[in-house]
């Protein structure tokens, strides 16, 4: 890997970078410092912690799966197809990233709630309600996580260009074969990185979940919701929950994010 060592880099730039790292690391260090290490094991095995962890894992993994299935074709279309309203579509895709999550959750409620624009048909025809269910939490998590995946994969597709796909087609491979044998295998690193990012976002989602899916232990109370609640009545449990979230997130992010955007 190229790059100067720490010694060769301009000192003032490194100093400001160090301040940025400090800003990010300080809250984490404070959390670890306040942790009740002696009683931690009994805290971590408490029913509400285990329940919240279970809900969080189920919701975030399902959301990641949906993001993979929906997001890959979307990224491909955005990168490769000359859409008439491409700018509008891209802005729409990025919207959940910039929208405050509670606003997103409220919008989801108006769209998919029991009396929602589309939700009322779900209720009337299929007897299907999303609010207050785990499925609803999955929908909220998918909504906020999708842009992260699409942006990563679309970026990789744009960077890698179409040259190899063109050669493959002159060799006789049809469009589907090109996708299967050239595009997707080369896209795998970006898909992995995008999924890790999307999953982490889904895991940490709070505002949209609590607004759309509600808050019930064992069904919709994810780790972030449980932490928020515990903060008011039982700070020690809140810290324990935060540590669980921290550990799970770091365990996945550290090995998979060597670069922001995997280059070829």
């Amino acid at each position, binding site marked *: 890997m190229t790059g100067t060592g720490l010694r060769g880099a301009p000192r003032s730039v490194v100093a400001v970078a160090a301040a940025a790292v400090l800003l990010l690391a300080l809250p984490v260090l404070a959390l670890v410092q306040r942790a009740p290490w002696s009683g931690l094991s009994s805290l971590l095995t408490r029913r509400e912690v285990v329940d919240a962890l279970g809900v969080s894992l189920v919701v975030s993994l399902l959301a990641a799966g949906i993001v993979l299935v929906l997001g890959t074709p979307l990224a491909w279309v955005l990168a490769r197809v000359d859409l008439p309203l491409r700018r509008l579509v891209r802005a729409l895709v990025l919207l959940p990233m910039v929208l405050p999550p509670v606003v997103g959750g409220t919008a989801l409620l108006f769209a998919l709630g029991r009396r929602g624009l589309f939700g009322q048909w779900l209720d009337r025809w299929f007897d299907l309600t999303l609010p207050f269910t785990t499925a609803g939490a999955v929908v909220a998590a998918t909504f906020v996580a999708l842009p992260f995946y699409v942006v990563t994969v679309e970026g990789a597709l744009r960077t890698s260009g179409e*040259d*190899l796909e*063109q*050669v*493959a*087609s*002159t*060799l*006789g*491979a*049809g*469009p589907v*074969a*090109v996708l299967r*044998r*050239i595009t997707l*295998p*080369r896209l795998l690193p970006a898909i992995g990185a995008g999924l890790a990012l999307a999953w982490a976002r889904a895991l940490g989602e709070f505002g949209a979940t609590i607004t759309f899916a509600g808050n019930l232990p064992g069904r919709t109370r994810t780790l972030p919701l449980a932490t928020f609640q515990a903060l008011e009545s039982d700070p020690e449990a809140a810290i324990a929950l935060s540590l669980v979230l921290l550990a799970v997130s770091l365990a996945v992010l550290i090995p998979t994010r060597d670069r922001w955007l995997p280059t*070829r």
Partner: protein
Amino acid sequence: MSSPRSGPPSGHTGTMALSVDGHVVVGDLRLEASLELTPGELVAVVGPNGAGKSTLLRLVAGLVRLNAGTLTLGGHTVDDGSDRGLVPPHLRRVGWVPQDRLLFDHLTVAANVGFSPRTTDERVTALLDALDLTALANRHPGECSGGQAQRVAVARALAAEPDVLLLDEPSTALDAGSRQRIHALLDDRDPGGRRRPAILLVTHDPAEATGLADRVVELSDGRIAGGLRP
């Protein structure tokens, strides 16, 4: 429009392997082409860089479309300037070896050569053997030298059994030894046990052109002109 051309090499009558008569506009470049190739013929296109030589090859390959005119391969019209009449690259029987070679890094050399759905294992083995690549069969393109990579690219295109082979500056950036091997390969009328396809070779080196080609055609000012016998 079209300029006088000397007759085909052996008084050939019948279907042209390639026939193009039209123009294409790509960005600032306007290319007018009027050219015919008989089966098995090697025609070299010379001209300065940026004149549109690569565009000509991309046109025949189907990666660029004529604005007006006709392009036929083996007597079939594959491009008539309209969207409906356009035959996509994967349905044309051309082999395109671009200047950057563009080998598939994630596949082995053997998998590269055997990539085309149209080829067979026997053909791949024969080509690897003919081009002295058998030892590299299980290596990846990243491990090959420039000359080896060039041979892999040519083998890959030939394995697809094309009627027309398109070579973009095949021996630029190669050392003398590799260049000799490529030239020997192109001289061979029978690489890998099959009759050689018609070859359209683009180069900026006139000596290479006259040394290899049955005919040399000049491309300048966006027009293909002439068809001179060496």
